[in-house]
């Protein structure tokens, strides 16, 4: 139950600026996710909160107490933080019990209390019967739980998680996701979670900070940043999206690539725009504004993933798998659009694509 305030934190390694003027407050009991592609600076931010890196400039406060900044630096061991590392960092020369008890042993907690608290936390992560095992006798998922138990045992007010699930297989990852969320709810602690997996971020977070090239692109609830992205990068990073160049004229958006076909638009933007369309927001409709020809389809059971050629452009449509019994390739088809995201054509899209390729 702790707040983290980050004031204008910039971090550079030599000339390489990895984080620019990060300025944010994480509230009490919040589940915060730092999301972004690898190398975006999210892990560096986490390590600065932990005290493994010092900010080049700016200050970090935990519970209104300055921990990094100016001449003040509180070393990691004095910050009372729990942390789970990507590689788990479970010590191979200690058994599960000793690993988990370590933070309490360091604090010279009485033996009886250690036993009680370790027992409790092992129970939470379902490892009670493994207490005497050594790490090399545990599976990846179990080691991960040991790391989590160790991070929780000293009842920290703040828990940092550095891509804790990335080394697990898909099934385990999904179940651990909910377990971590459940534990956080039960204990009410503040969590800062770093990941590059947007599904993880969406499923667990109260607030997501989407970071790219050291700059926060947008922050907000999962719903906000999915549905109201502030720029093309955010729209592209979360979920599936197709971009089209368009021009707003007379209350409509015209798409040159679609042979000049248009859709109605009543938003504020004018002139040249980037239009982002999520494939689940397009549907087949006999009197839709866009006319095209079905080029290919992939039946995936729950959905039918289609590509429709509209003019020169290829539009992706995710239709419900039950909606149409039979679509034939080459069939003439009309499309309607539920909602679009319209951005000013400021060249960001081009620069974004440049990085991708």
């Amino acid at each position, binding site marked *: 139950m702790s707040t983290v305030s980050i004031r204008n934190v910039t971090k550079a390694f030599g000339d390489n600026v990895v984080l620019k003027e990060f300025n944010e407050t994480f509230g009490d009991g919040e589940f915060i996710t730092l999301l972004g592609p690898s190398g975006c600076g999210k*892990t560096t931010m986490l390590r600065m909160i*932990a*005290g*493994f890196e010092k900010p080049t400039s700016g200050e970090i406060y935990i519970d209104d107490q300055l921990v990094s900044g100016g001449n003040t630096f509180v*070393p*990691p*061991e*004095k*910050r*009372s*933080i*729990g*942390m789970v*590392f*990507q*590689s788990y*960092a*479970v*010590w*191979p*020369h200690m058994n599960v019990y000793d690993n988990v008890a*370590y*933070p309490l042993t*360091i*604090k010279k907690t009485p033996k009886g209390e250690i036993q009680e608290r370790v027992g409790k936390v092992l129970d939470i992560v379902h490892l009670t019967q493994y207490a005497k095992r050594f790490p*090399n006798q545990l599976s990846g998922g179990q080691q991960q739980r040991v*790391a989590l138990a*160790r*991070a929780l045992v*000293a009842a920290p007010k703040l828990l*940092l998680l550095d*891509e804790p699930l*990335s*080394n697990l297989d898909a099934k385990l990852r999904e179940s651990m996701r909910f377990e971590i969320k459940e534990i956080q709810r039960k204990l009410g602690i503040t969590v800062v979670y770093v990941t590059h997996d947007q599904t993880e971020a969406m499923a667990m977070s109260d607030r997501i900070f989407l970071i790219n090239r050291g700059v926060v692109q947008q922050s907000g609830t999962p719903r906000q940043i999915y549905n109201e992205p502030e720029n093309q990068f955010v729209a592209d990073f979360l979920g599936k999206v197709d971009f089209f160049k368009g021009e707003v004229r007379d209350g409509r958006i015209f798409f040159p690539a679609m042979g000049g076909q248009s859709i109605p638009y009543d938003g504020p933007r004018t002139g040249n725009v980037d239009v982002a369309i999520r494939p689940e927001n397009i549907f087949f409709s006999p009197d839709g504004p866009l006319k095209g020809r079905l080029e290919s389809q992939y039946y995936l059971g729950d959905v039918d993933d289609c590509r429709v050629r509209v003019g020169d452009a290829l539009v992706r449509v995710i239709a419900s798998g039950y909606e149409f019994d039979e679509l034939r390739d080459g069939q003439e088809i009309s499309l309607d659009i539920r909602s679009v995201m319209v951005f000013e054509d400021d060249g960001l899209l081009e620069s974004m694509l440049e990085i991708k390729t």
Partner: protein
Amino acid sequence: MPSVDKRGEIVCKATLIVVFLIGVALLLGGLWGNRQFEAAGFNQENAFSLVHQLTGETDRLYQKKIAPALKASGADLSAVSDVSRTLLVSAWKTEEPLKATLQGLSGDALAERELKLLAMTYAVSGPKIKTAQRKQLAALPQAEQTALLNQLLLSATGNEQPLPGAAEDLCKGLEGEERTAMLMQIFMTTANLDGEPLSSNTVAEIKKAVRTEDKRVTAYTWAVEGRFNWLSQLFCSAGKTFVLIGILLMLDVAILFFWLLADRNWQLDFKWILILLIVDFMLVFQVLPTVTMVIKAFFPDSHFSLSTIERLYTYDLNLSALMNTLIAAFCTMILGTVIAFPLAWLVGRTNLYGKRFFRSLFVLTYMVPPYVGAMAWLRLLNPNVGNINLVLRAVFGLSDAPGPLNIYSLPGLIWVLTTFYYPYAFITVSRAMEKMDPSLEEASRISGASPITTVAKITFPMMTPSLIAGALLVFVAAASCYGIPSIIGAPGRVHTVTTRIIDYVGRGSEGMNDATGLGVFLMVLAIIILYISDFVVAKRQYITVSGKSTRPNIVDLGKWRTPVTVLVSLFACIVILIPFAVILITSFKVDLGKSLLDQGNFTLKQWSTIFSWDEMLDCLKNSFIFAIVTATIGIVVACTMSYLLQRTRIRGRKLPDFLITLGSGTPSVVIALSLILSMRGDFGINIYKTAYIMIIAYLIKYLMMGMRTVVSAMSQIHVSLEECSQISGASWLKTMFRITGPLIFPSIAAGWFLIFIPSFYELSMTTLLYGNGTKTIGFELYEYWTFTSQPMACAIAFAILMVVVILNYVLNKLTKGEFSI
């Protein structure tokens, strides 16, 4: 395709049987040959091939010269026969062998055999004809020579003929049998004049190979009877070698048979030949010699006795050598580890200033010949004139008496050993620290532990297995070191096992027995420790694979950063800089006792000698050649082995690996000693005091360094890289050259240098194995130091040091900074 399998199985089994039978044949032939040799009582085995040669040569001599002369002269055959017989009996001083070989012969055949025997006898040990007179005889025209032969035969059989001046001169004053003997000798010499039959080379060889007259008689009769054909002479003249090869072939087949049996797949594989070749090499040059040594120690007079051992271990000098070795090695181990761990941690895990510099500096010591350090410390801590002692005396106002520090003592020995062997522990621990996932330490920090607590509770316990492995390495290295104790111990009467062994070997065959006893002690010690570190400790090593590698966590030393850096620099100065500076300064001195700055005490003589004196250049050349050959053979074996170990699942690939590990774990002195015992011909190989024995010894000791480097590089390369090349259409060979080769090239280069450098300046094995033509630079240096001129030795030492540093630089450039030592 069962039919193909079936055919392969038949081919395989047939090959095994044939090879086995060849092995048996060679063994039996060799045994027979060796018995012939022992029965004959010849001095050298090659006597048999000489006998075979003589058969042919006398044949030709008789056909070409003697028989025509006999015919042309018309001398009475029986008279010639009688004369020859008489002469032979008097030359041989016995009649028995002659009777035996001439039995049942008559007429032409009898005369032929007698004349051939006489030709050989006179060629080897007949009445002497001086070179001047031989020249006169040779100067006669062809026709006169032929005439002379006839005249000589007639004269010898009592039908006196006038002889040409040269021949007459020779016979002057001789009467009766002596005259006849001289006539026949002139006859034989003249017959043999155009050099073709009975070559002087053969004669000279047989003089060496058969040294007593009665045995020579045996050789003549065997030659004249044609007792040996090319095959039997081969078996007789290399009996032991054939026995050895035969046993090896049988052993190979047996090993192969068990592998095939275990595989249940009777198909021959080329790779097995590679494995068996390496195994055979190690068996002959490592296992056989060490076994010989052990047997010699326990069976001094070919039956079991503990007398050698008892004599050794009740003799005070040896007992104190044993104790000194154990104490010195143990203290060095403790001291070295205590120094190495904090250094490795500071360099690997903190923000010490100049970490990279210190790291390469400490590692470089690893590549410096230890005796160089001993020389430097001797200059510094000599009780009378040591620089440090002089300074201490001046500072504390002590009297001129020796001291206060004395290098010629057990603590002195331990100190120098420590400064040269702590890098073993440093390297082992540093490597383990580099591999350790930094988040293991970070997890401790975030759990509330301070940096110091983290070191104590996490870093140190996790490093324990590597630390023990490094410590044991230091122990063995210190216990089997010869260079340092020989320089420091000998003058101070601080003996160690190695110096005692080399003392004993220097005393010849008497000392050899005692040397083996001490050698066995050293070997057992090394093997026990090798076993502990390779099989007990290695199993406990924690494997920590980090996920995404982050920058290694740097512990902020804070306000301690500058003081700690100063401390480490001070250590580097004391251990590395000052000793090397002393070596360099001494190399320019005329008089050791004076300062370099004193009037006339500076000279370049030592340095100019190094680069100009022939003997020095010869030694340098030897060192380079031996080291290059060793490193090149070594790296080929290393690449083969790493391919077998890393890329095949073939049975038996671990056997050569095991033998190579065992070899490098054996103390140098023991390797050399056992090679001396077994490579002097007792087992069919005689390479004592040749270049071969040096190269073989270096290979056994240093091969593993190169092998480990290449193996670990190859294990880093995922097989898929090679498979992808093959799927792209490249053959196996092309894949090796285009993909694997370039990828592991830096390691191959590094491996080559790792074998080259220690072979280049090797001392302890060289001291035991050198011959007149195979002195090396390391040995030359040692001789200068102990017998002639210390400044000269220092100059050589510094030259060696420069070679090492330059090679290190080349290696660094060659591998684009990936490797330096």
